[in-house]
């Protein structure tokens, strides 16, 4: 069976979300690291901000990101009726 209209809408929402999460991933990783020296004076919980981001902040963001994706995709599966138990 060919992918129908419903499938295409599902795929488009998936792509939008993938893109948005990838943008967050990119900023948390590369943009923050690029400006690490400039951000050196800011502090979080006693850490200089760039050090905190690379040692903890980015990791927590990755976790949230992956967890959110799993949860949200489950919802999308249901909404568009493409879930495995649909």
């Amino acid at each position, binding site marked *: *069976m*060919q*992918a129908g209209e419903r*499938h295409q809408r*599902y*795929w488009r929402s*998936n792509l939008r979300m*993938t893109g948005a*999460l*990838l943008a967050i*991933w990119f900023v948390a*990783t*590369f943009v923050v*690291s*690029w400006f*690490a*020296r400039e951000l*050196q004076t800011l502090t*979080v*919980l*006693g*850490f*200089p901000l*760039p*050090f*905190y981001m*690379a*040692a*903890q902040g*980015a*990791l*927590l963001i*990755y*976790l949230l*990101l*992956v*967890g959110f*994706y*799993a949860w949200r*995709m*489950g919802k999308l*599966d249901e909404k568009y009726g*493409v*879930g*495995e138990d*649909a």
Partner: protein
Amino acid sequence: MAGQSQFTSQLKRYYSLYTGGVIGFVVLLSILEQMGVPNQTLGYIFLGVTVSLYAGIGILSKTSDVSEYYVAGRRVPALFNGMATAADWMSAASFIGLAGTLYISGYDGLAFVMGWTGGYCLVALFLAPYLRKFGQYTVPDFLGARYGGDGPRMIGVFAAILCSFTYVIAQIYGLGLIVSRFTGLDFGVGVFVGLGSILFCSFLGGMRAVTWTQVSQYVILIVAYMIPVIWLSVKHTGNPVPQIAYGYVLEQVTAREQVLNDAQTPEGAREAEVRAILRQRQDATEDRLRALEAGGEEYLAAERARLGAELSALRSRHAPEAEIEIAQRELEAFPQGIAAANSIWRAEAEADRLKSSPIVAHAEPYAGPDEESRDKKRKNFLALVFCLMVGTAALPHILMRFYTTTSVKEARLSVFWSLLFISLLYLTAPALAVLAKYDVYTLLVGSSFSELPSWVSAWEAVDRALMNVSDINKDGIVQLAEVTIGGDLIVLATPEIAGLPYVVTALVAAGGLAAALSTADGLMLTIANALSHDVYYKMIDPKAPTGRRLAISKGLLLLVAVCAAYVTALKPGDILFMVGAAFSLAGSAFFPALVLGIFWKRANKVGAIAGMISGLSVCMLYMYITYPFFGVNAPLWWEINPISAGIFGIPVGFVGVIIGSVLSRPPAAKVQALVDYVRYPNMAGDEGRGTS
């Protein structure tokens, strides 16, 4: 799915019991230690019991079913697949090396922390759910089905073997080191003991055995990593959560760095004194190097004769024993031949140069004397993070794990659990580095040579490259510039630094062993499966009966193990470089073809072949011409280090897939339908395509 949920709760019960058993075992051994059982025996008991435990699980999980052997029957619950992936993922380099790298390089070492975790975002968003839906056995399977023909599959097999083999060598190397250090066995024997236990589990039960041993190995490795760090954190901050507490410790470390770098303070003045002596020593060694260049063999002979004469002069005037010993050691260590002298003296001069420079602040990113060198560090930091991340999302032994979950939904969840279990260690390593640094900066530096902490002399006796303190300015007090610490020491010595009993040290060794074994397991299985499933079954004899397929797979596993042990025994190069190289290679070869295969229907066979070959070639070429080991020493491109060769290979791979595809005909309708099949967890009409 009642059977599955019963299976899950059974697993939870077993592994809770198991974790309790591990803790009970540690407690029992510490009682034995109190009763006076010698350390060596405790070490043997520890390694023996854990290794036979893994072998036991391997025997219990033996199977002759194809789906069980290759993908553990596709019924591994997300949580347990997460633990298995975490153990599969965290290698000897993560367990032993990472905290040491962070101790030595400070902020710049965090590239590994981010790179080795952020890659899971790419796994989650681009690969895991789709590969699970595809539902075959190996990564080359996907390339073969998506792009058609044996070409893409063959290149996939080649790349999978290339990067897994590079990576497995590094694991076996680490294995040999741990076994030999903690049992006193020879390095070579250590390699074979370790290999034997790897074979035991993967040989009989394939993926099924590897999965359940990896879960048990994860439990041991994370417990072993956390206990000493928590203890150290309580000791220095009173807070049992090191990840939160070390911000405060980092402030103290930064303050200490400023004091020690400031020649106006009494301590800073003493550091400056030592650094001045080191600088003189460096100059003297450089003079020697110049004399060697001019005088060659003659100069070397004259130097050796001079040292000999000095030694006999000392002897004849009955100089103190200690002085004679130093002179004798110097004569014995005198380099044989020009090449040896050149490399040894160069290394000595470099070591002195590093120690005579001011301390680089731990939290300072890209420290350097000028804008240019700082820029170069920043570029390489970002390039390394990028390569490690993309490589994570392309290493076949990791991707393979996502074939083993029950459903697409579980595969997505399983990435989350994997990342959570991995992050537990990666959030702790930077804390350990800072806590250990604090200990060294405050307790070791400034203490007197007559009463050094006991762990210092204990590790000095083990290996002087790991730990070495010598009173350079003869003031009887330890200065930081007089301390040499090898990276691997940090994790290995933490239990002693924290003042914990020997049992914990043995536990840490067992944890390192678990990390190396679990990764090596997964890698060897990947290699053997690529050969038996993709080459033999899919390309040579598609009608082969199940029994023969598994027999061939097991035979190949043995062969791979022997090859790997042989190559490891040759001790080729630097572990960290080999690990990094595996990531760059995997990223360049697989990532573009896999991701475009799912997200771009137009990608076709010509594109895949072009992309994989060009990406891999560029990556290999760059490593070959720039890594000193190969001896070409061509100039770097944009100052990027050879470890990050993937920064060139990965984009070239993408361009290759796109150009190749656009220039040739679009893929057949059947292939486009496969892409749709992979994209949606459930399409009406999915039945009968064999997701099992």
